[in-house]
């Protein structure tokens, strides 16, 4: 039985290039009207642009399906969830839903900082659609799950961010909907808590209820969802078995431009002393893999033109996390080069970096001290997660995930007498 049937839903936004945000002031409207009198029609039209956040999306979801939704930022995933949760309406199309639906687009929606934990449980529960009797019934379980017994009568503004998130999720976890919609809530909270959340979501999915789950954590999607939707630029381009969709998605992700290349020396970046020819990331795929995961070794290949005879040069590479922390800086030894092309390779072993997004910058240094040219954010690449023989799917902590010699054995047997 289909519990959700969506037919040709589209959502259009008008992007107004003159204004930065959705709300406008009367002054804008009035001055626009004045401008229009003097401007030609075409000029005015160019400032407004239609943007289809979703375009002709149709699907059916059966009862008990656990749907993972994958796609890049801006692919339309969140818009779809917002439409399904009735927060915004589609521009065209129709969706029919059967069953009590609850959506969790944020943890702790409507929490009021001045109210106590106890008051916020009732407030948030009611906002999520729980009846007062249901909240009362689950009250102890919620408090227990969140671990906030001692702080029940403290205003939540005094809570640590961890406690806040735990309480928010605990309430949501005790909703009892037939269809549950969850958006990337696992991105918050500590590992211990994420583990708890995933466990709770597995319970939901195993009890035959329908789940829609948006996440960038593909491991979690693979663990929880039997089917997946793949969105790209507002269109549902593929749907089906999760393993198939995730593989398809990952192979497209890794074919992003991982190479920068300039054919002619005069339009290459650089200066009178050096100019960059190319910078390229080459993965050494093993086991017929088509995407970079934590096991994949990669090579960074670098080529530049040296224009000063006998310059003493070396290359220096920085690797940053997406949030900007430097993980390492490595450099080649310095040596003298003649005029012409110079190239270098840096090999990054597999089983070294953790999963995540990384940014590489490359520097050419003269006489080990003067930076001739620094190419910031030269390449950006993603490393996907891979695990074997584990039942835990939370985010693996740390920036690196090396395989070290780490052994364990029984050192003594306790002899019973």
């Amino acid at each position, binding site marked *: 039985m289909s519990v959700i049937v969506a037919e040709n839903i589209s959502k259009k*936004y008008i992007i107004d290039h003159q204004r930065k945000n*959705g*709300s*406008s*002031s*009367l*002054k804008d*409207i009035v001055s626009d009207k004045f401008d229009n009198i003097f401007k030609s029609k075409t000029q005015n039209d160019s400032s407004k642009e239609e943007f289809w956040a979703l375009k002709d999306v149709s699907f059916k979801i059966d009862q008990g399906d656990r749907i993972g939704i994958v796609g890049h930022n801006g692919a339309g995933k969140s818009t779809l969830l*917002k*439409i*399904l*949760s*009735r*927060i*915004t*309406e*589609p*521009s*065209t*199309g*129709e*969706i*029919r*839903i*059967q*069953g*009590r*639906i*609850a*959506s969790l*687009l*944020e943890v702790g*929606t*409507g929490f*009021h900082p*001045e*109210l106590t934990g106890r*008051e916020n449980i*009732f*407030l948030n529960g*009611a*906002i*999520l*659609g729980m*009846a*007062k009797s249901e909240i009362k019934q689950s009250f102890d379980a919620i408090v227990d799950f969140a671990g906030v017994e001692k702080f029940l009568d403290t*205003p939540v503004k005094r809570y640590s961010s961890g406690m806040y998130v735990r309480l928010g999720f605990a309430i949501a976890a005790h909703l009892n909907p037939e269809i549950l919609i969850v958006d990337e809530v696992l991105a918050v909270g500590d590992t211990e808590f994420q583990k708890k959340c995933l466990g709770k979501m597995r319970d939901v999915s195993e009890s035959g209820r329908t789940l829609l789950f948006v996440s960038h954590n593909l491991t979690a999607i693979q663990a929880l969802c039997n089917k997946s939707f793949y969105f790209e630029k507002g269109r549902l381009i593929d749907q089906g078995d999760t393993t198939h969709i995730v593989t398809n998605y990952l192979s497209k992700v890794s074919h992003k431009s991982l190479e920068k290349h300039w054919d002619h020396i005069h339009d290459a970046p650089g200066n009178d002393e050096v100019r960059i020819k190319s910078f390229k990331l080459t993965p050494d795929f093993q086991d017929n893999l088509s995407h970079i995961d934590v096991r994949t070794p990669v090579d960074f290949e670098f080529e530049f033109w040296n224009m000063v005879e006998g310059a003493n040069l070396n290359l220096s590479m920085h690797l940053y996390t997406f949030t900007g922390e430097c993980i390492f800086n490595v450099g080649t030894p310095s040596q003298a080069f003649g005029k012409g092309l110079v190239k270098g390779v840096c090999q990054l072993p597999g089983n070294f970096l953790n999963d995540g997004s990384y940014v590489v910058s490359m520097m050419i240094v003269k006489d080990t001290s003067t930076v001739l040219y620094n190419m910031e954010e030269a390449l950006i690449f993603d490393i996907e997660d891979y695990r074997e023989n584990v039942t835990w799917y939370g985010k693996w902590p740390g920036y690196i995930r090396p395989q070290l010699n780490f052994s364990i054995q029984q050192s003594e047997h306790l002899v019973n007498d």
Partner: protein
Amino acid sequence: MLHNITIKAGGSEKDYWKDLWLNRQLLLILSKRDISVRYKQTLLGVAWSVLRPLMTMTVMVFVFSYLAKIKSDPGIPYPLMVLSGLTIWTFFANTFTQISNSILINSNLVSKVYFPRLLMPLSSIAVGFVDFLIAFGIFLFLTAVFQHPLSINLIYLPFFVLLTFTTSLGFGLFFAVLNVRFRDIGQLIPFMVQVGMYACPVAYSSTLAQGTWFEKYYNLNPLVGIIDGFRWCLLGDKAYFNPASLISTAIISTVVLGLSLIYFRKKENSFVDHI
């Protein structure tokens, strides 16, 4: 929460009012939230609700009665006339302002969860109503101080309170929608409330407008009938009240409320796109 729903463009679901009714617990909880948040972290707490009307009344008595020598209706102490008008005017002004801001104040909810959006303006009335009850208590206390007898007209009081509520909801809903679209409205509202107080018989009796060229326009203001009527309930027949003025009040309030509801319902599903 309804079980079977259809989502489509412009889909004002036919079950909207049923959905609203099913969400009445949420209405109560949101009202309770507003009331309990109101005075948290204030030093004097609820005392503000007592102090504010008293202080406003004192200032008005000084300015209008002592300095400007405005007369009240014969047989009615000026402070009581001001306080009765002030009580119902403040109720209107507070609920109107709160309704107008209700969607923006709750924008975090609007963008993250669905419920009939009408709950937000409705729940924002609660705080104004509590303040009204307190001000009403002060008024009763002052009538005892001035030894002014209470009138039997008091039984009509709920009618006037209800009428005030309908009027503020009608105008408030309209501005609530506009406020989401144009942030200028937020600046305009306090100004409208300030001007409105002088356009209404709060500090003076509407007998002052009698016989002037603008009298017929003056009575078009739906609040004139309400304030006069409210005063008549509290202070008895000595207070000036022309029941005919209620006709324009009733017509204007009902029409405005009807139109505002249609406008609100038409726009509520796209609030999030402007927040």
